[in-house]
């Protein structure tokens, strides 16, 4: 029942691996002193790019593209029509061009010709149609069906062009549906989704060679790739949950880059080191404390506003994040310059104002220093993900700041599955997450701010917000969209559905051995999707 590419491998130590391994064990110095750099030798042979992830790669199909680590390997095996690239531009990959009708209800895609799947067959419009229809249908177990919102039908016009008809406007269609990786219709329909996500075949520059979810994903170059034979022999993603250990692997030369960041301090220590290229970008996601708005003690927006005044967010950034973050003043990242609203109300650190608001709302301080109203204590529990030592200090510092104005925030830890369920179902009070409330370039926050949003962890319900979100998605004109999203940001800042703290600087470190990296990077994840142009000759 396994696909042809699914093999459990036990490769003997190759010369290349030996060289790479010896680099970590002290052989380097001997070889280097003979003028023979092992890594250079590796480069001329192609070499294997070694990347480090923090969590297991659960699957390799289009359903699995959301987590960064999985996207890293998936987008090297499979290609979508478009990607939102490292410059946050919509870049055609399998599509050559596209047109949208005036009314925004018809998309026509022209495909690149002569693109081969790993099994040698050619990619055609039929494959795109199949992909869209399969993953657009939640009944197929698709978890990304909402990407295809309002898609009515897909027509194949020729082997290299197709037309998508919409029942209503979906302004996010290109950035959502357009970036879903294309699967080969024949193979996928034969083996089914379950097998496909364990042994995918795509048009990518690399083929799956070996995969053990909790261990590694190993890819080998696909010589017939449409953008040319990759310079690398392969890409290997290792699962290393411990950030310190990822750092050690980087400094010992065992790995070339960590897909998931190191500790801030470790990343900064490599900044300026000529052996590394450190790429800093501003995150799309806001680090925030989602708070359950449906709790009686948190339902008054003055209480939530007071908490914003009570938090010294600059101190959190300085003390715990080494200054590598920006205070959040909106749900949208300032990186999304077009939609970002710079004229929003700001919550500067002001405990006196916090106390005033709480008094005004009727929450009065008791003898224990905790406020209460009608016998109800002003308290809640913030549950952080078990083992999330990197972020938990933020909750610990916030706890003290909130206590200072009479709010009792208890701390707890729980497994991630419990938190995801507890927050979504509203059975938990609060947590700590990095999450997008609208991203770049697409500012739509429906997942996290719409009343029925799957990631609406704050149980935020505002009909006005819902209407604006729908209006935003149904509007094509960018100017009109901008004023809608400016309004959304205003309501967000006024309502404070969650305690929004900061936009982190995402710090990605690459070994300077890695050649072919783009000069300018605004978004880090797509850099790893460029492995077809990388080499190890640096």
């Amino acid at each position, binding site marked *: 029942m396994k696909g042809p590419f699914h093999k459990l491998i036990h490769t003997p130590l190759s010369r290349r691996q030996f060289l790479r391994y010896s680099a970590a064990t002290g052989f380097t110095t001997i070889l280097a002193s003979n003028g023979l750099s092992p890594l250079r030798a590796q480069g001329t042979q192609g070499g294997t790019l070694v990347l480090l992830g923090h969590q297991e790669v659960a699957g390799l199909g289009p359903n699995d593209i959301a987590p960064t680590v999985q996207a890293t390997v998936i987008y090297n095996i499979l290609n979508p029509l478009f990607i939102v690239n490292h410059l946050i531009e919509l870049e055609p990959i399998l599509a050559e061009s596209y047109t949208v009708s005036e009314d925004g209800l018809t998309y026509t895609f022209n495909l690149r010709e002569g693109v081969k799947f790993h099994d040698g067959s050619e990619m055609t419009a039929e494959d795109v149609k199949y992909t869209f229809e399969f993953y657009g249908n939640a009944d197929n177990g698709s978890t990304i069906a909402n990407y295809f919102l309002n898609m009515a039908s897909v027509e194949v016009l020729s082997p290299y062009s197709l037309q998508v008809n919409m029942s209503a406007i979906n302004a996010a269609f290109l950035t959502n549906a357009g970036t879903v990786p294309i699967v080969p219709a024949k193979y996928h329909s034969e083996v089914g989704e379950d097998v496909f996500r364990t042994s995918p075949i795509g048009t990518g520059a690399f083929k799956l060679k070996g995969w053990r979810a909790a261990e590694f994903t190993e890819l080998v170059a696909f010589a017939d790739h449409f953008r040319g034979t990759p310079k690398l022999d392969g890409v290997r993603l290792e699962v290393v949950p*411990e*950030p*310190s250990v990822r*750092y*050690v692997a980087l400094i010992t030369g065992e790995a070339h880059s960590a897909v998931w960041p190191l*500790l801030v*301090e*470790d990343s900064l220590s490599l900044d300026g080191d000529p052996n590394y290229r450190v790429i800093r970008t501003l995150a799309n996601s806001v680090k925030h404390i989602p708070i359950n708005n449906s709790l009686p003690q948190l339902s008054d927006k003055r209480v939530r506003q007071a908490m914003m005044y009570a938090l010294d967010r600059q*101190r959190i950034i*300085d*003390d*715990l994040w080494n200054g590598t973050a920006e205070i959040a003043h909106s749900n949208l990242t300032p990186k999304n310059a077009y939609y970002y609203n710079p004229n929003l109300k700001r919550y500067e650190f002001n405990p006196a104002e916090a106390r005033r608001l709480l008094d005004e709302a009727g929450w009065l301080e008791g003898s224990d220093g905790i406020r209460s109203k009608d016998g109800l204590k002003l308290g809640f529990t913030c549950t952080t*993900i*078990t*083992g*999330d*030592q*990197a972020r*938990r*200090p933020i909750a*610990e*510092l916030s*706890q*003290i700041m909130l*206590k200072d104005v009479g709010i009792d925030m*208890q*701390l*707890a*830890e*729980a*497994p991630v599955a*419990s938190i995801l369920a507890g927050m979504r179902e509203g059975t938990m009070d609060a947590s700590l997450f990095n999450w997008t409330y609208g991203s770049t370039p697409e500012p739509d926050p429906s997942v996290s701010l719409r009343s029925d949003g799957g990631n609406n962890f704050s149980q935020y319900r505002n009909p006005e917000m819902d209407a604006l979100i729908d209006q935003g998605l149904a509007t094509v004109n960018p100017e009109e969209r901008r004023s809608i999203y400016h309004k959304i940001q205003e309501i967000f800042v006024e309502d404070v559905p969650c305690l929004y703290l900061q936009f982190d600087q995402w710090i990605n470190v690459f070994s300077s051995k890695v050649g072919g990296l783009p000069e300018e990077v605004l978004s880090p994840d797509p850099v790893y999707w460029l492995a077809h142009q990388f080499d190890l000759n640096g």
Partner: protein
Amino acid sequence: MLANRQQTPAQQSQSSRAWKRFRRNRIALVGLVIIVLLTLVAIFADLLAPYDPINDIFRGMRGGAPTWEHPFGYDHVGRDLLSRVIYGSRIALLVGLSSSAIAVFIGVIIGAVAGYFGGWVDEVLSLITDSLMAFPLIALLIVLAAVLGPSLSTTITVIGATVWARYARVVRAEVMSLRERDFVVAAKALGAFDARIIFKHVIPNVLSSVIVLASLQIGSIIILESALSFLGLGVRPPTPTWGGILADGRAFILRYPHICIFPGLMIVITVLAFNFLGDGLRDALDPHEKDA
């Protein structure tokens, strides 16, 4: 000679002989002294700790290295580590002793009853013991803590209620071979009550191995608590516990190794002290000692 254990003057002189032997054991005395000191530190933590272990966060001192004012340095949030380690001794001793007490109580009784009576009593009790032993401990702790909600009392109860099986099994095995021995058979023949035989003859004879096991157990329970905190299921943060500090420092082990070193050392010292004490007690209480 084993059979003659009774509350007689001879017994008293036996225990004073044991104390003499114990006093001669310098390592055991060191253990005792350390434990007494630790207990004092735990009791007077408020007076001894130079700073508040939770609320005194020093600006910009995250992971700060040890200085004269802060001999253990700062933790990953910027709190004085010495103060946190001092307060941590409270939790360590509390969890270690309370959980052990629970475990010894349940384990010895179940083990003794099972081993002594044999038959269906043994079968049922062994079934429970075996089931518990065959259950992966950490898994059980993880899930129980998750269901009950992590807290100090959860930690103590959950550890105590799960580690007793070891005592039960060892005690049962010893009692099984004991019950065929002359003195038990004799007591039975004389018509003594089972409960009396168990408490007078059987339990005292397995006590030395229980003490050895307990001396190891307190240590492993303190380690188990740190493992639970390591997995985020121990006492709730930001309450200072050695295990918790260790877990916090674990993420920063290369950058701020001092965070992990001190609570780690404290655990080692505490566990060592209990083990030294246990060893000394064992040697002192060992009835064979006088023959050697």
